[in-house]
């Protein structure tokens, strides 16, 4: 988990606000849960602050499976961050 090279992918207005569809990051050691990841990303820069202004509404998927904000992140290869879905 800590210090692991991970792919982040963004969708919808989260993607637009952060200004990119994906990136690779090294997850800091101190990040354990999904919510901790969102709060850490939010303080990276203004774009992330805008995208993750209300982290409680943001959805996260770990290796393409929905995760709760309290879930441990573990060591996924891919973490997706996106707004509530509006398909169908």
């Amino acid at each position, binding site marked *: 988990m800590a210090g692991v090279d991970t792919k982040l992918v963004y969708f*919808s207005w989260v993607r637009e606000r952060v200004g990119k569809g994906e990136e690779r990051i090294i997850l800091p050691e101190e990040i354990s849960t999904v919510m901790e990841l969102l709060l850490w990303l939010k303080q990276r820069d203004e774009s992330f602050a805008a995208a993750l202004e209300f982290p409680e509404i943001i959805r996260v*998927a770990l290796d393409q499976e929905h995760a709760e904000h309290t879930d441990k992140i573990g060591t996924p290869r891919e973490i997706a961050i*996106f*707004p509530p*879905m*509006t398909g169908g």
Partner: protein
Amino acid sequence: MTSQCVTVRVQSEDFDQAVETALLTKGRTDIGAVATFSGLCRGEGETLTALELEHYPGMAESEIETVTNEAMKRWPIDGLTVIHRYGKILPGEQIVLVIATSKHRDAAFDGARYVMDFLKTNAPFWKKEHRADGDDSNWVDAREEDEQAKARWE
């Protein structure tokens, strides 16, 4: 043809409901009920020129498969087809199709509606509006009703 058949497709192309129905029913005499739902793009009084559907490739398919598997476990469904489009879709065009077949109508109706309710809130698709006034920046908000609709199955 096997007695249970599930098809999940995520595609940009349009689909033909009659063709998909025939794939589930043709040559069979054990199906008594076919429940079908299709979701169309609304023009919202001509304020919209199109919807642009973004999706998460891979996860979109696997989330729909999770929902169809659950539906097959819950009801005696013979066949279940789900097709969801992505990309630019014009008012009046089709977005999503669900077909459930069964011996009796309750399983077909319940199965189709269950899949739609979970697909709405669980499948990673997002709709962006292209507006007639030139504003292409608005993403459709998730509806509270859709969360409530999912809750009725618990």
